């Protein structure tokens, strides 16, 4: 079956199933048979600033796994929290503008690494399906399906490729997967079939030779947009998350959102600083990709010591 077949959408598709359906993207076979995938790419504003590690590692990982990222021409900010907090119409319009540009690229999927961007684009897509394009934007159908990078990389075909390309032993580094809020919630918008206990990142981490510890805070909030205003509250939330990770036996926390990452990396106030990784950084390290180590020097809490203790660096 061709990968563009996943373009179909039914109302059911939004009620508990991701918009990226691996069974449609790839008929089971060997890792050699996994097709190259072309997707529209929405990097989000943090890609060139606070989330540089994520953007750089995501790009090299996608290239290694034969996913071509076609950056949306002249993309703009999704509006993030501030737009939907204060102006619903503006929030929809800012998300929809990007979906209009993506649809013009004619690809089946729009992929974004940021959980907040993912959420806003999904909300805009739901709006377009129900009411059409907001005024002032071209007429579109919302046919380009919005997918979070995690779902794209956790499909069985890519996992097989990942296993085959794995070359570096990560020394059984003990980690907890942290999904945060907006990758799975609310499920009516995200299509998550398991909003309380997502497993896509677990699947990836299990393939690259790290120990995945169980913990109860997979989807607990980091405080997100309050970081700059009520940093006291964000520090509390992040410190609680980090101390629970330590109690679970983790040496590091793995994130899949640039906002979660920055909050955990810079706002934890526990006795011992715990390094945070993007899941794509660990994937890049395990495949021994060029540039995999470069991003590790951009962290606030340096992960170098823990990686050295595992013989990785």
């Amino acid at each position, binding site marked *: 079956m061709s990968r563009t077949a996943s373009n179909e959408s039914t109302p059911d598709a939004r009620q508990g199933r991701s918009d990226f359906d691996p069974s449609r993207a790839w008929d089971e076979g060997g890792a050699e048979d996994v097709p190259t995938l072309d997707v529209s790419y929405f990097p989000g504003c943090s890609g060139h600033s*606070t989330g540089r590690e994520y953007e750089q590692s995501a790009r090299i990982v996608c290239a290694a796994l034969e996913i071509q990222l076609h950056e949306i021409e002249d993309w703009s900010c999704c509006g993030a929290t501030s737009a939907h907090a204060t102006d619903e119409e503006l929030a929809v319009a800012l998300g929809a503008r990007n979906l209009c540009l993506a649809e013009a690229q004619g690809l089946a999927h729009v992929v974004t690494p940021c959980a907040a961007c993912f959420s806003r684009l999904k909300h805009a897509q739901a709006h377009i399906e129900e009411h059409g394009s907001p005024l002032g934007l071209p007429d579109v159908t919302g046919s380009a399906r919005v997918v979070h990078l995690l779902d794209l990389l956790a499909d069985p075909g890519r996992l097989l490729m990942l296993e085959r390309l794995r070359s570096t032993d990560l020394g059984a580094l003990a980690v907890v997967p942290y999904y945060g809020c907006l990758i799975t919630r*609310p499920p009516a918008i995200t299509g998550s079939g398991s909003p309380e206990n997502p497993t896509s990142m677990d699947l990836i981490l299990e393939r690259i030779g790290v120990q995945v510890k169980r913990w109860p805070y997979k989807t607990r909030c980091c405080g997100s947009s309050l970081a700059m205003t009520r940093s006291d509250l964000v520090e509390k939330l992040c410190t609680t998350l980090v101390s629970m990770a330590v109690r679970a036996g983790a040496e590091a926390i793995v994130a899949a959102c640039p906002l979660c990452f920055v909050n955990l990396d810079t706002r934890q106030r526990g006795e011992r600083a715990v390094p945070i990784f993007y899941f794509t950084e660990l994937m890049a390290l395990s495949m021994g990709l060029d540039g995999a180590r470069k991003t590790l020097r951009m962290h606030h809490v340096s992960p170098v010591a823990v990686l050295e203790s595992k013989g990785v660096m």
Partner: protein
Amino acid sequence: MAPDETRGEITPGSQRLLSLIRNRSGVDLGQCFQCRKCSAGCTMALEVETLPHALVRLVQLGQEDEVLGSNLLWLCVSCQSCSSRCPNSIDLARVVDTLRQLSLEAGVQPSEPEIAAFHEVVLETICRHGRMYELGMIARLKMKTGEYTKDAGVGMSLFRHGKLRLLASNVRDREQIAALFDRGRTRE
């Protein structure tokens, strides 16, 4: 939350806020039977004066001033736990957005002025550049709040690691962005 805040009768006069929310957000808070799952999972449960289930009850009772002045409207981080767990599928996070917008429109003084200022400068920045420009946004926020030294440590660390660009990255079609913002404003 004092327990007696949630007691009372729904009278015809109390329906105004309920129907206003229904019209604006499409969500019917009349469906709430006070199971308190929203409050049990609320990220900000320990910080807010009125828990989410109590806010809903106050809406049902038509207590507009208390609802629109609640600090929950500003401390809510939109984590979507309440909306995901409600047994009656009430999208409460959406309602909180709607109530915040109603409180701004009604000219209610935000209980957390810094958070309100943050949203304002973020949107000003997006309107101007089409994308986030952190340094510009931070400068505007500091001018608004007067908190010049707050967070200097984290800011320096981000800067040292090359995570705060000196120059903004601008969208080419800024006219279109400005038009989207203008349309949003004409409604107000």
